[in-house]
């Protein structure tokens, strides 16, 4: 059977408000041509992010009702801690209100001015948190990652030769940790192979550098390994996930992705002394160590979500439904990053709009046009997000100019995706008339969230 069937049915719906094209032209102008500044109710299909936007299951909602809101030592905390330990295998578990808080605490403890943090590719808040602490966020993607058409199965891999060079040159004195992001979001939601993870772990351990995993989409990555990497065909995805973490010394997690939660995250390590220092910061900025800034019900929802996400029927459906969109775009000749990643579709804005140069933000223009065309909200991942060096204030073109259409988990149907494809096709037909953008105002860190634009 070729039909992709969801291993769930719908139990609760949220109505969508429809808008006209004229209304949307007005609305995006009011939002200063930044989709982040649109009101959610003015969006028809919201593909801004897959973070915190998933549909929870009836089981997770039931767990929410069991939430123990006691300030200290709540039952919800023990259920959460035991589930995280079971899957991730780390001894020390620190809950946080979301992933960026886990990153903030981790880098606050480990990164000094002058530190270098290698990663396959840092995502926006990760990069910002490294830089906020005075460190350098160094991206070391594999060569294949830059070839948007390559069918290489693990384009999320880190360049091991480059990593060895950086480690040999700087050593553990300047490199407080090595990180790998699974899947690699900024490079198109592409997976990292187990072989690559083993290699990174080997380099890190032989140099005495802690190895951390940015685990947001760990289940999608584990399932790609099962489906693509020789030797894992018959291994259960949960065991693949466990093996990934067994090579690492710790992880950060945004539970808003691969735990179906609307809020929450955590930080793990096996180092009790480090965890002790991390909890001291946690208490100050997040909350007491048994709730970390989360309601008890959210700890329970995460515990349920972490178990559900590793259901292999769900993961097959998830990866196939993303591929469905990508394949249709390829068939229509529309430039898109291939092969399909796990959580999002990435249009190649550089080739979609070759007449717009990088620092006139082709990805941003494309996001604006797609909103006007179909009320679809997406996000630029290119020079707006990564083009500004906050230390020097210099702007330079990003490695890739992408437009990300992130697919929330278990939220939209195939007919929603067909509508999205139709809208992209209509923008593609009128691409030559699309103009670039310029930034009117923007903050220094994480400027893409609140920057204001105008059309050139």
């Amino acid at each position, binding site marked *: 059977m070729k039909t992709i069937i969801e291993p769930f049915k719908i139990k*609760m719906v*949220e109505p969508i408000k429809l808008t006209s094209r004229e209304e949307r032209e007005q609305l995006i102008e009011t939002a200063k041509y930044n*989709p*982040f*500044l*649109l*009101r*959610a*109710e*003015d*969006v028809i299909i*919201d593909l*801004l*992010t897959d*973070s*915190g*936007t998933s549909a929870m299951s009836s089981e997770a909602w039931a767990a929410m009702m069991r*939430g*123990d*809101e*006691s*300030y*200290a*030592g*709540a*039952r919800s905390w*023990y259920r959460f801690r035991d589930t995280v330990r079971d899957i991730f295998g780390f001894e020390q578990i620190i809950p946080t*209100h*979301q992933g*960026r*808080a886990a990153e*903030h605490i981790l880098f606050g403890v480990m990164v000094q001015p002058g530190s270098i943090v290698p990663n396959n590719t840092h995502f926006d808040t990760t990069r*910002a*948190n490294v830089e*906020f602490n005075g460190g350098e966020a160094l991206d070391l993607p594999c060569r294949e990652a830059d070839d948007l058409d390559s069918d290489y199965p693990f384009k999320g891999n880190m360049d091991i030769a480059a990593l060895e060079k950086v480690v040999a040159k700087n050593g553990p004195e300047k490199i407080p940790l090595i990180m790998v992001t699974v899947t690699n979001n900024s490079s198109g939601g592409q997976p990292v192979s187990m072989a690559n993870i083993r290699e990174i772990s080997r380099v890190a351990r032989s140099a005495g550098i802690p190895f951390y995993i940015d685990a947001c989409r760990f289940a999608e990555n584990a399932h790609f390994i099962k489906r693509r990497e020789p030797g894992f065909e018959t291994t259960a995805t949960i065991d693949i996930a466990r093996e990934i973490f067994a090579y690492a010394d710790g992880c950060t997690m945004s539970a808003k992705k691969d735990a179906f939660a*609307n*809020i929450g995250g955590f930080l793990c390590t096996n180092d009790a002394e480090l965890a002790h220092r991390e*909890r*001291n910061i946690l*208490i*100050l*900025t*997040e*909350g*007491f*160590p048994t*709730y970390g*800034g*989360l*309601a*008890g*019900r*959210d700890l329970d929802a995460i515990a349920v979500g972490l178990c559900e996400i590793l259901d292999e029927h769900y993961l097959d459906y998830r990866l196939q439904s993303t591929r469905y969109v990508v394949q249709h775009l390829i068939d229509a000749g529309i430039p898109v990053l291939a092969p399909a990643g796990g959580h999002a579709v990435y249009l190649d804005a550089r080739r979609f709009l070759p007449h717009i140069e990088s620092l006139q933000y082709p990805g941003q223009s494309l996001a604006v046009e797609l909103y006007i065309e179909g009320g679809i909200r997406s996000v630029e991942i290119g020079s707006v997000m990564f083009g500004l060096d906050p230390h020097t204030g210099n702007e330079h073109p990003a490695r890739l100019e992408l437009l990300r259409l992130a697919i929330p988990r278990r939220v939209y149907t195939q007919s929603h995706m067909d509508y999205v494809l139709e809208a992209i096709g209509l923008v593609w037909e009128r691409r030559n008339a699309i103009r670039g953008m310029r930034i009117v105002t923007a*903050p*220094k*860190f*994480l400027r893409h*969230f*609140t920057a204001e634009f105008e059309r050139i």
Partner: protein
Amino acid sequence: MVTTLSWAEPYKIKMVELIKMTSREDRLRAIREAGYNTFLLRSEDVYIDLLTDSGVGAMSDRQWAGIMMGDEAYAGSRNFYHLRDTVEEYYSYKYTVPCHQGRGAENILSQLLISPGDYVPGNMYFTTTRLHQELAGATFVDVIIDEAHDAESEHPFKGNVDFDKLDALLDEVGAEKIPYICIATCVNMAGGQPISLENLKRLRRWCDEHGIMFVHDMTRVAENAYFIQRRENGYQNKTIREIVYEICALSDAATMSSKKDAMVNIGGFLAMNDARFYERACALVVVYEGLHTYGGMAGRDMEALAIGITESVQDDHIHARVGQVLYLGRKIRAADIPIVNPIGGHAVFLNATKMLPHIPQEHFPAQALSAALYVESGVRSMERGIVSAGRDKATGKNHRPKLELVRLTIPRRVYTQAHMDVTANAVEEVVKRRDEIKGLRFTYEPEMLRFFQARFEQID
């Protein structure tokens, strides 16, 4: 204004949570495992949980319905606009930056306004608030009236600011070294004691005169408004909602832990009237908390908060809320047990200095009393004395607060009159055995906010 003497609840129970009963042996084992620190107990080993009123309130069916109306969009959630509009309507502040809880708002406020070497006056310290100020480079200066430090004083507004202290600070360091004054309504560490509107108005004039910003720590503003309605001339016929608005309108900005008054399990905000300040807060909130239209809160929690705000300022609600606290306090006082007077809005504070005269302050009498109360009855309380006060950041010596208290904090809408009776009886029982209670010493003392995670052993 509510005129009845009864404090009968203006709600009935719609959902319950079962409580596990424990034996004295169970509790002895549990408190030893917890290092005599009630924060380290498992909640399932607790019978009546009076550790805190923060995040432990019972939401209403309307708030739960709001939970189901969560718009979890990453940007521009409709729940954010509802929250923002509600804050302006009820609290007067034009701009709202959601934060995952109150300390998130304090972190952003302190980082944005404080320069190293500054001084921040306030009406008594609060643990996390002072630490955020200190980490940003400021020194906290207590400008509360002396009566606040006297557990027996019957002053009706022990949260008031002493202007002589404030002027003395101004003369000493100058207005340019005072970025803002931080004023709490219903001062927690003083025993949930209110500040009067007269004092607040005078403070507004003082701030205008010296060009100093007035920041309102508003987590228990509605309870403060209740005491104003009861005690301050000219406010008897005003509603709680009107008084709350009037209080807020006197300040320039506010930090809110909505886990208290607003009866949600998670959430808070930073609010202000200045557009520039708002812009700067939006740029910083995204680093620590989340995009400025959710600030680390789920959409559903913003909705529950917006609804909770409207419920928190109802006269009937506050009358029952404070009525229950007064009921417990009067019952304990009637048994000749020393407590902080007048009884505050959110908690009854036992005076451990008087209850355990055989334990010197450096052996942590309040901590010992809190542990003993748990063993006696399964009631969980919190130390608010020398352990909570921590050490002086310059000398490293223990702060020695005049108030050595155990706080019995009443969660909103959770416990019944019978639970309060059990609690009062438990306090009486523990007093009968007071000679058996031993002092404590640290076996582990954290560097910051030590009360949360410290461990102790008994001194034989």
